[in-house]
């Protein structure tokens, strides 16, 4: 996959998730979700703390999109993200991963990081 494709994924995910309806997330186990985030390969494109920001996948955390939008993108992703159907990722697992994403703290603002201001 090349640079261009990654940009398409990122743009599509951001657009797609924003357009979907929101609903409350089911309770999830954040600790287990953190393990699943790695085991199920989410980190591969989005980074271990869901930071995205590169060209492989958009940012997922902190403050993830609404759970409905999250699962919609998982099940029937727009563009190039691999699909995570319920055969390989249960609703419970999705909720656990979502719970993990919700625990990820907000980073310091870029303006407060000297290395990002030079």
């Amino acid at each position, binding site marked *: 996959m090349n640079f261009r494709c990654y940009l398409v994924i990122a743009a599509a995910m951001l657009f797609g998730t924003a357009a979907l309806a929101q609903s409350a997330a089911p309770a999830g186990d954040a600790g287990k979700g953190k393990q699943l985030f790695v085991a199920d390969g989410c980190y591969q494109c989005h980074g271990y703390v869901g930071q*995205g*920001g*590169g060209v492989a996948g958009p940012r997922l955390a902190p403050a993830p999109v609404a759970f409905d939008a999250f699962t919609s993108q998982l099940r029937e992703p727009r563009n190039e993200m*691999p*699909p995570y*159907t319920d055969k*390989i990722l249960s609703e419970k697992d999705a909720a656990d991963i979502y719970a993990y994403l919700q625990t990820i703290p907000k*980073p310091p603002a870029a303006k407060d990081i000297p290395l*990002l201001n030079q």
Partner: protein
Amino acid sequence: MAKPSRTGVDRRKFLKGAALAGAASLTAPPVAARAQSAAPAAGAAGATPMPNAQTAAAETGAAAHVRVLTQETCGSDFMVDCIKSLGIEYICSNPGSSFRSLQDSVITYGGNKSPEFIMCCHEESSVGMAHGYAKIEGKPCGVFAHGTVGLQHASMALYNAYCDRVPVWMVIGNGLDATKRRPGVEWLHTVQDACAMVRDFVKWDDTPASLQHFAESAVRAYKIATTPPMEPVVLVADGELQENSIPADEKPRIPKLPRTAPPQGDSGAVAEAARMLAAAENPVILADRCARTPAGIGLLVELAEALQAPVCDLGGRMNFPSRHPLNQSSRMRALVAQADVILGIEMTDFWGATNSFEDQIHRTSQSITKANVKRISLSAVDLYTKSNYQDFERFADVDLAITGDGEATLPALIEAVKRQIDPGRKAALDERGKKLAAAHKGALERTRADAAYGWEASPISTGRLCMEIWNQIKNEDWSMVSPTNGISGWPTRLWDMQKHYHHIGQSGGYGVGYAAPSSVGAALANRKHGRLTVAIQPDGDLMYAPGVLWTAAHHKIPMLAVMHNNRAYHQEMMHLQRMSNRRNRGVELASVGTAITGPNVDYAKLAQSMGWYATGPISDPKDLGPALQRAIEVVKRGEPALVDVVTQPR
């Protein structure tokens, strides 16, 4: 090829003569048996001593096979004269018997200076080094290799250089005359048509049959390689031609290397392009391998400023200053989507820049441009397209294709554009420029904000990695020489890149194993300029041929290598994930055959074993800055240094 009438007897003729003498001795009492009774027995036959040739000739008047053990001249000395005439500074090579004569001539006759023999541990490293060297120095580096086993090792690196439009001047050894080959390995290292296997991805090759032929082909090859589109070339140096004495009646001469003017676009087409660009409301300039030389950057800036048009640098070369207000690389898709005129300069994939493509089970694509957009291409690659390897990408809908070198055509295009812009138009363009400057500023701020996410994470984020490096080098005369696509392009997005050696692009053919040798080759070129060479080295790439680390230490090539150690061939891991999920099998096994774990590689120890200063693995971002600082102090002393950093995938 040596002629029979020459004075003196060459090595191979001696061997042949000796064999013939031996064979003759089986059937008739040799003259030598009478004349040279004190001579030692020769070979397994034992009974037949070697003749004293002078005596034999005196007594019989027959042609003698003089056992000459030394020679005053050799063809390879003249070949070195040819190489010197081309100004080639280095020969990167793993030693090989098929060019032993050439190697000897370089290091003895030639004084091992211009060219200097750079010892490599793999032919892919040799060509990879030449690739990186050429992108810094703007001229070819030489490579020697076996015509068979060496060229096979080198072929992937040649393909990268070919796809990247980079000149490499390569000589391979061979032994065409079957009667002259030593039994055994020399047959295995000989081939009828040595260049056949790489002919699809080199620009030219030849098999010279005489020294004069070699001289002309050497200069011709250099000229062809360095005329845009630049590509690798290969010459075969036959073993006989290298090793035999130069016949007394041969006076080979070296032709003059011409100064070559690159092809320039047709003046009428350039004028038409200028009219289209000047009249456009939303033009976009896409530049991939536009800036061949340092001057190319300034020319592209001049064109962009004349038009107040956005430039999207696709990164095949350092084309446009990263912090110029008209640099809109991060907004390329949006700008292409709203453009009414798109100018693509030396594009690898114009179609890909103007279309979307979905890699799902049913692969689909669609244009992302407006229906009435006008596309202009400017490229020298139109002059040179081959069939077998499909690096030309999908055919793009282009309205005006200007065949000519991008950089060479820019001066004419700039002048033509300026003629189209009256004061009224200029005022409108200046307004456009102000909006673009604001957009550039906003994009930079967003990118910095993106890099803040995961700032404290371990493994270390690639954004943090790149900004820790930038913090250490920003006040130096630095040169970033490794590809940036595997690290989310952070350096091109966040570093202040202005000079042509601040970034030298990607591999060309995406053949893994490019980054390490090309970085060392680029560092070799940077050494005499006193630049601080920096490479962000992918772990899987280094595992291809890590011996190039030894080459850097052995030849005292200073550089800083910072490992992007994500412990995987991560691109392929993502592809496996795609396949597994598509089949509802999950991704648990995506690491099989892709992860470089179990054991984890200790890159610091690997580098130390080859003479580098090295430290790591570093996983805590707080440790990174000090480690880099210490390593740079070593590099400033003229040595290579490596910092192993365990990182996030991308």
